[in-house]
Structure formats: structure tokens, C-alpha cells
């Protein structure tokens, strides 16, 4: 393996972290390394599904592992899609799926779970996704209500995040009509 065999993209973010880094698609897996030296590496054997969608910072590649862990890389340009798709197909024999998000602006839909991620779908398109693994608490503030708490008041901003530059989601409350009946029909994905 002396010749260069990988595809790279510059100025990519991993998760909500502000640091940019180099994102590499290589035969043995996916790697990201920030300019400050942080790394995220995913082995080819762990990859299950890769998808491409709009994000706050450009476009996002969502990497789903076989154990349902999700990694998200964003800051891609629209034109990066073809190059990423070709590399992923060549090295992993996986199709990079373009996933359109719901932009209707509705506040009703259906929840779906993938590992510890909760996906809120509106007319069968994802509207948003929440990493429940990062939640610090849940409660039932009222009848048919479920609240998920991600940040407590007084809690400092995450390491490396400038609280003036990022508006943080602290909590979300859902209204779930007929909660009890719904839970029994919860499908596993």
C-alpha cells in the first residue's frame, strides 16, 4: 500500500465541535483529525450505513455503525457529494444515500429510534434528530407530556464551545396523545 489510496476533505467538523479538521475516506475506514489533534476513527468493519443531508454548517455525512452508534461530520460543500459517494462505493461497497429532510416547519410527526438516537419524522422525512445518550434527564411535566433535558441552567458550555457562537438546545417537551397505547407498538429498527 505504498501509493496514496484515500479521499480527503478539508475543514470538516465532527459532531457539534467547533474545531475543523481533515476528513479521510480510506480503504480501512473513516478518519477525522482536527488541527488541534483530536481524532475520530471508524473501522471499515463497523460501518453499516452512510447518508448525506443538509446541516446547519453546509452538508453532513451521517455514519451509522453496526452497533447503532452514530457519528456526524459536517461542513461539506454540496459538490463534495459525488466525490464522497464514489470513494465510499469503491472502498466499502456502500451506497452513500442522499436523505432529504422535512422543511415543512410543522411541529407534529412521528418518533423513531435508532440506537440512542431519536428521529422526529414529518411525512416520512426526518425533521430533526436528538442524541438521547447526551440527555441529562427526562421527566413527565404533565399529562401526556415527556420532557428531555440536555443542559441545565448554570451548566457551563461544553468544552471548546463558545456560548456566544452556539445557541444550545437545553430541553424539549413532547406532547404524546395516548402515551400508553403508543409505547406498546414501539417498533425496533
Amino acid at each position, binding site marked *: 500500500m505504498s501509493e496514496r489510496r484515500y479521499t480527503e476533505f478539508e475543514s470538516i467538523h465532527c459532531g457539534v465541535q467547533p474545531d475543523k479538521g481533515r476528513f479521510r475516506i480510506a480503504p480501512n475506514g473513516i478518519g477525522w483529525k482536527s488541527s488541534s489533534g483530536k481524532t475520530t476513527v471508524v473501522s471499515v468493519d463497523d460501518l453499516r450505513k452512510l447518508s448525506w443531508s443538509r446541516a446547519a454548517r453546509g452538508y453532513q455525512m451521517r455514519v451509522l455503525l453496526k452497533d447503532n452508534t452514530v457519528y456526524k461530520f459536517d461542513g461539506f460543500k454540496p459538490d463534495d457529494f459525488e466525490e464522497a459517494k464514489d470513494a465510499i462505493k469503491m472502498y466499502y461497497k456502500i451506497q452513500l444515500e442522499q436523505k432529504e*429532510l422535512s*422543511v415543512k416547519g410543522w411541529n*407534529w410527526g412521528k418518533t423513531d429510534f435508532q440506537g440512542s438516537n431519536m428521529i422526529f419524522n414529518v411525512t416520512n422525512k426526518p425533521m*430533526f434528530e436528538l*442524541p438521547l445518550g447526551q440527555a441529562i434527564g427526562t421527566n413527565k411535566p404533565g399529562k401526556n407530556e415527556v*420532557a428531555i433535558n440536555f443542559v441545565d441552567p448554570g451548566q457551563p458550555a461544553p468544552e471548546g464551545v*463558545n456560548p456566544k*457562537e*452556539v445557541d444550545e438546545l437545553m430541553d424539549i417537551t413532547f*406532547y404524546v396523545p395516548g402515551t400508553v397505547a403508543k409505547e406498546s407498538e414501539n417498533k425496533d429498527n
Partner: protein
Amino acid sequence: SGNGEDDNKPVFKKFESYRSEAKLPQVREQKIVVDKRNETVILPFYGMAVPFHITTLKNASKSDEGDFVMLRLNFITPGQAGGKKEDMPFHDPNATFVRALTFRSADTHRMTQIYRDITDLKKEAAKKETERKEMAD
């Protein structure tokens, strides 16, 4: 929608923020953006830019907590205490609804402006709706 002849039962008035994903403005950062033209508030959810149409919003409130400003958004859902239920038909009353969201930022000045923009947008939308109803009568 209703032609005023049998409108004892209000119908759900359809609305949408954007026709397609391509119409969603470039946001670039994980910050709240008020898109007045499309009557939409775009909210950052873990790297995603998530639009909510102003019609879904019930009210907004702002409070200070140390160095942070917290913005609370309450949305219109079924089963709300004191709500004029009959006035608000739902597209799918059995769906799961986002009822409330809280965001925080240390950028006091920008958050104050966002709060003002959201409440103004809501006021304008309410005014338009009243005018529409008057026209229908």
C-alpha cells in the same frame, strides 16, 4: 379552505415553511435564525438547521440565567389547558407534537433581537389571520 357556508367546524389550514430542502436558507452556524420572509424560525438541533413555521408557535419568553439568556418557545398542540380547542383544528391530532423548546446563548444582544423578531413575526401572523377571518365572514 372554508367558504363560510358550513364553517361551524373549522378546517385545518395548510401551511409550510419551504417547498423543498433547496429553499431552506444557508445558515452556516448553529444559531437561531428568524426567516421573516418565509414566516419561519430556524433552530439549531445538534448540527441541524430545523425550521418551525410561525403558525406552530404559541408564544415565546426570555429569561436571564447568569451569563446566559434563555429563550423558551411554546408550540400549539392538542390538549392544552385553557386553549380554545375548537378554534384550532389539527392535521393529525394523534401525532407526537413538539410542545416546548428552550435554547440558551451567552450573546445577550443577539438573543434579545431574536426574541423581538419572533414575537413581531407572531404578532404579524396573528394580525393576518384575523384579517383573513374577517374577509371570510
